[in-house]
């Protein structure tokens, strides 16, 4: 596991319960690493689990691994895989990160890359302890012809057996783009306005802006021949229900409130970049990206 934050911990803790899998967790948070090695990695909430992966902040300690799962924030992909690539010389590396461009970053360092999209979510409560907020599915697919589908199936099978349901597909871009479009069209709106997901969706003017962003994303996906596995609009309306995520503050809003760098370059920025490559205009996504980058810039002002 490369990056053992909230999502990484869900995979690491669950997978470590399997008898035929040995899990190593690489993370730069030394307190977290020490706690995992001392007390195990505890999940509570949607599932209560104590796993025992081997944790380290020193990439040189990692043995050769059959699989890597990268779960860092998107802006840290390159540094994380550069440090750990040696462990995956004969393995496959999957991303379960947000956004667009992670596979490309991984493929610059390792041979066999697996595209992944995951919906489970949680948050780090403290060293060695993660709250498991939502269960959900993961979809894996080969990034290119160098990754055998059989290896993707082996990874999906292990995750499923560990209680993290996953499926292997030939082309995993559909679920990836559905999630990217969902996130890019809602997260920054929450971040810029301070509203929860439900309140964004119940304002008709703002909901129309969300649809404008969704439509640009769909056009960019269609230009690449990507078939979305479901309409992001349905996901957005579903999440707005009071019993689902009405009161949820998007992760980007949490980032903005904590003045942390956001993933906007990999969400809206990714849509803009792929749009430009495919000749599809994305003025609203570009505007949103510029506004969020401006917000980040305001924190470094005196």
């Amino acid at each position, binding site marked *: 596991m490369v990056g053992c934050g909230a999502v990484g911990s869900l995979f690491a803790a669950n997978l470590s319960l399997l008898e035929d899998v040995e899990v190593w967790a690489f993370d730069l948070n030394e307190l977290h690493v020490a706690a995992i090695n001392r007390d195990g990695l505890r999940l509570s909430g949607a599932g209560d689990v104590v796993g025992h992966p081997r944790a380290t902040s020193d990439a040189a300690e990692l043995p050769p691994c059959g699989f890597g799962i990268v779960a860092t924030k998107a802006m840290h992909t390159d540094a994380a895989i550069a440090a750990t690539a040696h462990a995956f010389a004969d393995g496959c590396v999957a991303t379960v990160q947000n956004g667009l461009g992670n596979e490309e970053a991984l493929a610059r360092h390792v041979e066999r890359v697996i595209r992944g999209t995951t919906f489970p979510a949680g948050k780090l409560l403290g060293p060695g302890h993660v709250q498991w907020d939502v269960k959900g599915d993961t979809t894996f697919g080969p990034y290119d012809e160098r990754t055998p589908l059989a290896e993707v199936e082996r990874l999906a099978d292990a995750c499923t057996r560990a209680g993290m349901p996953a499926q292997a597909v030939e082309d995993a871009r559909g679920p990836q783009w559905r999630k990217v479009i969902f996130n890019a069209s809602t997260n920054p709106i929450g971040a810029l306005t301070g*509203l929860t997901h439900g*309140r964004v969706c119940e304002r008709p*003017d*703002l909901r129309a802006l969300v649809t404008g962003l969704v439509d640009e994303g769909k056009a960019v996906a269609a230009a690449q021949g990507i078939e979305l596995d479901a309409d992001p609009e349905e996901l957005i309306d579903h999440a707005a229900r009071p019993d689902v995520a009405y009161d949820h503050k998007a992760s980007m809003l949490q980032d903005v409130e904590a003045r942390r760098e956001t993933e906007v370059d990999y969400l809206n920025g990714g849509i803009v970049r792929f749009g430009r490559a495919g000749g599809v205009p994305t003025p609203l996504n570009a505007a949103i990206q510029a506004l969020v980058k*401006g917000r980040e810039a305001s924190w470094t*002002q005196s």
Partner: protein
Amino acid sequence: MTSVVVAGAGSIGSLLAAHLARVADVTVLTRREEHAAALREDGLRVSGRADFTARLGATADPAALPGGAELAILACKSTDLESLAARLEGTLAGATVMTIQNGLGAEEIVAAHGEWPLLSAVTFMSGTRHGDAHVEYVLDTATWVGPHRGTTEADARRVAELIQAGGLQAEAFPDLRPAQWSKLIFNATVNGVAALTGLPHDFHFAQTAELSDLGHLVRDLVDEGKAVAAAAGVELHDDPWEMNVLATQRGHRHFPSMLEDVEARRPTELELINGALVREAERHGVAVPLQTALYRLVKAREASYSE
């Protein structure tokens, strides 16, 4: 001496009242009686680019305003204009009323509350209030005056000359719309972007080196505004993009009022600025998707105050 009423004593109202008091009989209409009392007792101190204390009348009661006022300047924020105009109904007989709010539509709000002859003004000067009876004069840029209802360019010129005589910059125009629209597009863009990003009006607004730099968005927003002005038959007095670039080169970091408003969780002037631009666009059939997005985002930001 000319008798002048200045209604609203924020930074712009205070600067106008204090300077005009050197050449006219000025009465300030405040919202709070203690504010009026402070002005009556201490006078109104100006610091910064000028240094004097003006003696003037002040009251919080519209009925106590002098009967013979020739000019009344409504210098409140646009968000307070409707209630101010309502308070003034039936008063100021014989006075010409001048609006000086940001955005568009201030004249119509006032026109609905009385038969006064109307002048329009936009101001580029700025100040900072340091208390009820002290204002700092910061930017000495001009106030522009033009005729509106029942007034002529000559009326506008007389007011501009009075303001100049008091020591401020002013200029009269036969038609204020070109200047008003230049400022409208500039304000809608700069205020909206500042409110959402938290950035003061600084170099980021003119930066275009990288594709995701903010300057591209600012220029696209300005271009939408220019298309609306063209469709409305208004030839702009200044190019709002050049106004933006110039302002970012002045070297001091200006905090636009809409940014200060959202940070203090106050209602903003969004409706008369961005709202006005979006409604004009709709009226003239011009698509302004980016200004519309900006307008909706700031409006939603105001709604988040209750979160």
